[in-house]
């Protein structure tokens, strides 16, 4: 691991100010960053420890929603009574990710910024447009079983690894940031950037900006939600395909559905196509399958990951079956 200077920030303004020199990075849980520093994928010259900042609270909002600090640990968020009651999909997604130890470390803000598990991104001996823009993509012709089928480009097919972000994508979370130019917020559906020709740019965070908190709107009456994850082993593994679904039922009729998918997209993948199919439809396997077909219509398989397209469809159908059960 390369050498770096370390400083601990005591307030948000100081934290934002101290990353202005290039080569500085914030560290919170460290579970992605320190891993990548060991691999020399990340080589910060300055590490700004933000664990002392007062961003670790989960607070009810006046409108019935929830405000989640960027430093709330994954385990605390997953086991929070309000989250479990109002947003089961979020609790389930969090508990399906990583291990209890990692969830005790990983933070809400950090998880939104989690980096891909693409083998070629993680190995500095390979070409990777995300790590080293313009060097090429080793995954394209390499072993790409875990790679994305949605949102890919000829420059990058790396999968976004987070489960939590998929649930937040379905919930339509709002992300609040602060930085050298002040505070701003953005819907999570506009936070992530498709790889396109610049896979090194993964989100809209500007240099020096930090996520301060995330808000969730109050859940609709009669809304039910569910997260289903499919992977190579029963636990402690990244998704091959996952689905976060929130459904408002009126009898057996779906009034409204919110659908996001994980393990298949270059970003946490919201599917307005599936939502459109489901809105106003009867809750039936046939309609769930139509929604799944719509969600994966634009999917593009590479050499080893074609199985993900059918797996993702079945995962979404199963998740919808589960959430609409009486």
């Amino acid at each position, binding site marked *: 691991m390369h050498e770096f200077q370390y400083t601990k920030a005591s307030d948000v303004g100081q934290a934002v100010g101290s990353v202005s020199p290039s080569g500085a990075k914030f*560290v919170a849980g460290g579970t992605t960053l320190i891993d990548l520093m060991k691999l020399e994928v990340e080589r910060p010259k300055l590490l700004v420890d933000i664990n002392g900042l007062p961003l670790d609270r989960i607070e009810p909002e006046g409108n019935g929603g929830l405000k989640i600090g960027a430093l709330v640990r994954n385990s605390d968020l997953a086991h929070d009574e309000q989250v479990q009651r109002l947003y089961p999909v979020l609790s389930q997604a969090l508990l399906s990710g990583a291990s209890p*130890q*990692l969830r005790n470390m990983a933070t809400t803000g950090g998880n939104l910024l989690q980096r891909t598990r693409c083998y070629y991104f993680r190995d500095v001996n390979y070409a990777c447009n995300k790590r080293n823009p313009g060097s090429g993509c080793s995954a394209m012709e390499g072993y790409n079983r875990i790679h994305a089928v949605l949102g890919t480009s000829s420059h990058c097919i790396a999968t976004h690894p987070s489960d939590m972000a998929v649930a937040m994508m379905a919930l339509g979370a709002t992300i609040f940031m602060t930085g050298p130019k002040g505070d701003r917020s953005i819907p999570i559906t506009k936070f992530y950037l498709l790889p396109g020709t610049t896979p090194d740019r993964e989100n809209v965070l500007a240099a020096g900006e930090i996520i301060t908190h995330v808000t969730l709107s109050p859940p609709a009456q009669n809304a039910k939600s569910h997260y289903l994850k499919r992977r190579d082993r029963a636990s402690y593994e990244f998704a091959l395909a996952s689905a976060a679904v929130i459904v408002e039922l009126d009898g057996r009729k779906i009034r409204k559905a919110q659908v996001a998918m994980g393990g298949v997209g270059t970003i946490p993948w919201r599917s307005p196509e599936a939502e459109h199919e489901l809105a106003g439809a009867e809750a039936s396997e046939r309609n769930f399958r139509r929604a799944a077909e719509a969600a994966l219509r634009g999917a593009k398989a590479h050499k080893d990951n074609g199985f993900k397209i059918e797996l993702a469809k079945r995962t979404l159908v199963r998740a919808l079956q589960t959430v609409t059960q009486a």
Partner: protein
Amino acid sequence: MKENPDESPETKKGDSSTKPPSQLSRRTFLGNIATVGIATTAAPLLQVGELDAQQVHQPATDVAEAPATSAGTVPVSLKINGQTKNLQIEPRVTLLDALRENLGLFGTKKGCDHGQCGACTVHINGRRVNSCLTFAIMHQGDEITTVEGLAKNGELHPVQAAFLEHDAFQCGYCTSGQIMSAVALLKEPCGKDADAIRECMSGNICRCGAYNNIVAAVRSVQGGS
């Protein structure tokens, strides 16, 4: 990965002739076999006890508490198993490496060094974490507990006793991490059936596959608590 950094020559100097042979530790034993092997390849094992009396490891805490300043190092104060330890280390030293390399606490194991196996599990402020994925400098003021800090007044922690009782290990390399996870699990919202325990223990990989006995050990403590 360095296979056995704890058995490097640096840790085998010093004198603790007061240590009775009956306290011959596994590490000392293995270390001295290596020494004997170098000195006289045919040395009878009986000599090990004598060697033990002559050259047992210097307690590594002494090394740690006499910091030497070198380029890039900074003072770091850690509270480990109730004791404050002052180190002079680089910011890039992980908590795991500080425990093993600087403090001589070899109970915490280095497996994958990337948060994928759980062998390095310790408690920070009562919560289990992977000590390989955090820097020591980030934990000044925190209460750190390692497997060495579980036993109280010579009595094994009930989870340690249960692992012995249920033969919940084979090679033992993952065991301290498994035990640290199991101890933390008792205070977490984890169910009591075998499936729930498997899920709660999923952050600790055992290549020997002692999982059935590990689950049995955890269940026995859950039931008894």
